[in-house]
């Protein structure tokens, strides 16, 4: 029982960053703009959250600092993601190319800045003010569920709320309908008076900012600082989660949870005796092998938004 509850608790913690990044990717792709740059936006979020929190600490904001870190990651990455937006919407650049450039720019410029700001050091100093697990009194005493849901980081709560909000906005409001229309059939959307490019700008910029929260989560909960390898491939896994989850917020969350579960299984299994006879590498491989099997066996074809990857040209049918 305790093992299962630890397993599920770990799952939620591992998945949080992926949920954010996958939700970010989903918003942009639903509006018809491919976002290979999720990795870069996570790096940007990790960097800006570390920097903002660091300066907030020194300025004396105390326990409020990591919250400012989240805001910093969100706001600064919005500026950064407008590069991707302008390139792929205004200048009609190949969206895959633009995303790759985002990844290159994020990795190199953050590392450049860290070296510049901290006198040649390859990483930021350790942050003293980071998020700690919140234990909700009484509720956390509920068997199983209590430890899983009521003994976790605040960022996890934010991620789950965001899934619900996004689901509601996408499928129950008119702005969500507009966003989806722009990704499916932009010229039809234009005909009924939806501003295609403006909708796409909003989607892409939000996409980067939300993915940035994923990067910030890693810095502010598990890592406590930013280095060049803080984000190593999670953005690509989040990209897989978007496709795996069939461009649906709940699907993306489930996919992210699946990756988190496989990670947590890896950590928990290693405690057992029989695990000593299984090579470590097989545990590391587990999440990826499982995903492949699930994909090949059960999920089948996922249908992308129809206009994904196509710049909108007025008058084109």
């Amino acid at each position, binding site marked *: 029982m305790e093992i299962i509850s630890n397993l599920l608790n770990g799952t939620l913690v591992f998945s949080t960053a992926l949920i954010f990044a996958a939700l970010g990717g989903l918003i942009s792709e639903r509006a018809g703009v491919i976002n290979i740059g999720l990795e870069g936006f996570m790096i940007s979020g990790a960097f800006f959250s570390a920097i903002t929190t660091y300066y907030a600490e020194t300025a004396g904001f105390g326990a409020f600092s990591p919250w400012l870190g989240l805001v910093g990651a969100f706001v600064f990455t919005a500026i950064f993601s407008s590069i991707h937006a302008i390139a792929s919407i205004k200048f009609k650049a190949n969206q895959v190319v633009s995303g*790759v450039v985002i990844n290159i720019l994020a990795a190199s410029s953050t590392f*450049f800045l860290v*070296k510049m700001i901290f006198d040649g050091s390859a990483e930021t100093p350790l942050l003293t003010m980071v998020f700690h697990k919140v234990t909700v009194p009484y509720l956390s005493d509920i068997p199983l569920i209590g430890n899983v849901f009521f003994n976790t980081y605040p960022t996890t709560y934010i991620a789950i709320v965001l899934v619900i909000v996004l689901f509601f906005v996408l499928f129950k409001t008119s702005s969500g309908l507009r966003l989806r229309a722009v990704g499916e059939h932009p010229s039809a959307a234009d005909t009924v008076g939806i501003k295609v490019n403006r909708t796409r700008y909003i989607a892409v910029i939000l996409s980067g900012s939300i993915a940035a929260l994923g990067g910030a989560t890693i810095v502010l909960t598990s890592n406590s600082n930013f280095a060049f390898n803080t984000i190593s491939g999670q953005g*690509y896994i989040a990209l897989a989660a978007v496709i795996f989850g069939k461009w649906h917020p709940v699907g993306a969350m489930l996919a992210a949870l699946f990756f988190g579960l496989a990670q947590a299984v890896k950590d928990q299994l290693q405690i057992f005796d029989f695990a000593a006879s299984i090579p470590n*590498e097989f545990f590391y491989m587990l999440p990826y092998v499982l995903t492949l099997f699930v994909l090949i066996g059960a999920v089948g074809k*996922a249908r992308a938004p129809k206009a994904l990857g196509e710049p909108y040209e007025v008058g084109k049918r």
Partner: protein
Amino acid sequence: MNKIMSVFKRESVVIPFVAIIMGLLLGAVIMWIGGYDPMLAYESLISKIFGSSYDLGEALRTIVPLIMSGLAVAIAFRSGMFNIGVDGQIIMGSLGALIVGTQLSLPPFLHALFAIIFGALLGGVWGALVGYIKAKRGINEVITCIMFNFIALYLSHYIIRIFMPQAGTQRSEMIHDSASIQIGWLSELMGGARIHWGFLIAILAVVFYHIYLNKTKWGYELRAVGLNPHAAKYAGMKVPNVMVRTMFISGMFGGLVGTFEVLGVFKYIAINSVTSGLGFDGIAVSLLGGNTAIGVLLSATLIGALTYGSQGMSFGAEVPGEIIRMVIGFIIFFVAAPGIVKLFFRPFQKKSKKKV
């Protein structure tokens, strides 16, 4: 003569050229804002590349894997697929070369040849699997590629740790000398720079890529599928076969990157927790080179030279070398969005456009 001049006026030549200049300028501005000396930085970059015959050789060594991984990404792109899994194919290639290089004893020339072939095949199979899963099950290649990268990484760690470990270190044992593809005499001539035969194979691969794509039936099918898979299917082409075949060749190119690195440069594999990233650099190379043979060759040369030269920047001008990665990013960005480049052209073009 006019023909040559017209080549230089073509958009496909002018835009990358201007993009490179704009990228370097933008890099200079950032260095200047950061309080560094951009002139000194670029000077030390160039003197790092051309400083000695050793540096020139090592710069060349940096370029070779970029050509191969650029070709790997490019051929997939031309068939309409995004091979983000070159990193995994590189790992499988290096693993294949390592297995043959350490486990077999063969006469010198034969040993190296066998190691190269096995490495290329293993990379090819790893790529073809991605193509097969897409062709048969319709699963997006991006997601399969990402999974395959991680699986290759840990699989190679396992095989190295169990069968070919170097006691007490985080790396494999060394390959036998008979499997080495280093060019001993040239290497000695160039102050020990790790020059290897992979250079020649990379040039041959560029030629092969051009001929395969433009002069063969398979290449024609590949391009047709890339332009419009539905039309290609309607015309009687077997689209799934083309996908698997293309990903096999793409994977072979990737596998050769790893093969060269093991047989020609390092002679062992280090157990790292992350992939080399050469596959992702291949994306940059192929994009900058417009997915053509000559384009890939030129852009690999540029990116490789800049990357190698950037190592001299922190020493010569105390500028973090990462600025060059940013410059490379800017260049690809300008190539991808030619509208931005044209924006800068506009003031110069006004006169000639008046009459139109």
